[in-house]
């Protein structure tokens, strides 16, 4: 049973499928919102395969080993995090405190992303890497505090317990709407999605840390980012929308899928609605608004617990 869970559901294959699906849906939603047709369903897969077949160019002076290990580390840490994030109540493994491990593993890609800029020697990569680190400090603090809310409320750092707690009370998003909103904002920053795609802003730093990557490595980077999107969305659904629990009697998987698509819709609309922020604007926003509000939310949660 364990190899099946690791490799097929809810492991690698399922996540890969979800990554492609979500990436397509995201592009499709944004396109429709902007009045375009959008890509066909096979576009993300086609892009992935095309990148795999492309020539892998390494710039002079770039660290060869590091630049091939980094995308793998990024992908592996996302996949490892996925082991502990239940999909419709099923997870490959679970233990007390797995939320903390998941949060740690999900912030690994940010570090590898910064290092990717560092090891490939281009100026755009280095500037992009610096920006990604700056951005990390702005979104990660409110994100972590916001995610601590449900854990504190349910009194457990085990994701399965948090879901169970919401099962016999109500959704976390209803008890902590502010925390949910901040978590979504934090997720946007984590995934470097549109309003907060500062480290890879095309008109400013070309491709950011990934400017010099090509071929298979770039494909892995994209896959890691797409999977991170999936795992991040699943995590939010579990912590704030009660996992697969809804009215009793409904099958678990469709409910979970619906909730996940709802969060994806929020992310897509956010990227269609706003212009990219500047890095100093994000830092101000993060330290002046997001982090204090997240603390406030946790304080409210503590008061609720009595």
């Amino acid at each position, binding site marked *: 049973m364990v190899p099946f869970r690791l490799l097929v559901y809810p492991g690698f294959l399922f996540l890969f499928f979800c990554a492609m699906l979500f990436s397509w849906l995201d592009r499709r939603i944004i396109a429709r919102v902007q009045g*375009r047709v959008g890509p066909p369903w096979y576009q993300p897969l086609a892009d992935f395969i095309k990148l795999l077949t492309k020539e892998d160019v390494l710039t002079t002076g770039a660290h060869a080993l590091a630049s091939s290990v980094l995308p793998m580390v990024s992908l592996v840490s996302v996949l490892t995090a996925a082991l502990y994030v239940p999909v419709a109540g099923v997870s490959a493994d679970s233990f007390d405190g797995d939320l903390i491990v998941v949060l740690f593993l999900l912030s690994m890609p940010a570090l590898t992303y910064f290092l990717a800029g560092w090891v490939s020697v281009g100026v755009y990569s280095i500037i992009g890497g610096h920006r990604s680190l700056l951005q990390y400090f702005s979104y990660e603090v409110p994100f972590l505090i916001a995610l601590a809310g449900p854990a504190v409320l349910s009194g457990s750092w085990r994701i399965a317990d948090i879901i169970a707690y919401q099962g016999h009370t109500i959704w976390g998003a209803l008890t902590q709407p502010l925390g949910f909103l901040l978590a979504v904002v934090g997720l946007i920053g984590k995934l470097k999605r549109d309003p907060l795609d500062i480290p890879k802003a095309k008109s400013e730093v070309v491709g950011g840390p990934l400017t010099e990557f090509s071929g298979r490595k770039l494909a892995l980077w994209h896959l890691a980012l797409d999977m991170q999107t999936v795992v991040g969305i699943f995590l939010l659904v579990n912590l704030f929308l009660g996992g697969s629990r809804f009215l009793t009697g409904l099958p678990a998987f469709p409910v979970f899928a619906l909730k996940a698509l709802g969060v994806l819709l929020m992310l897509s609309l956010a990227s*269609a*609605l*706003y212009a990219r922020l500047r890095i100093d604007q994000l830092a101000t926003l993060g330290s002046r608004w997001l982090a204090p509000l997240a603390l406030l939310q946790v304080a409210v949660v503590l008061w609720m617990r009595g």
Partner: protein
Amino acid sequence: MPFRVRSLIYMVPQIIRSLRAPSITVRFPFAPAVIPEGYRGVVKVHAELCRGCSLCVRDCPAAALELHRENRETYRLIYHPERCAYCGQCELSCNFGAIYQVNEISRSTLHLSELETVLVDRKPEEEDSEG
């Protein structure tokens, strides 16, 4: 700094409106591309009207037209779509209404030489022939 919620959700009604509207782009190879009626496309000639006066050749800004004349009765008018600027000055310059543009796009070829079109091939004995 006044904080107004409207300024943060200003685009929401817009995107809902555009969700309801049909999309402006088409999936190109599968949906037909429409070339409008008055589009200035490739150059054609009513060969029977052409007198070989070479006014079009003189005024063509891109040197897309060539007239090879052997004598008064024998000449060939050659058109190079790859040089053509599709400005339609030839149509304007022609005093006999012989040269005109249609709303077609010149086809793609593998070699430049295949694009070359003989518009008029006038010989003394026959009336006209079109290439």
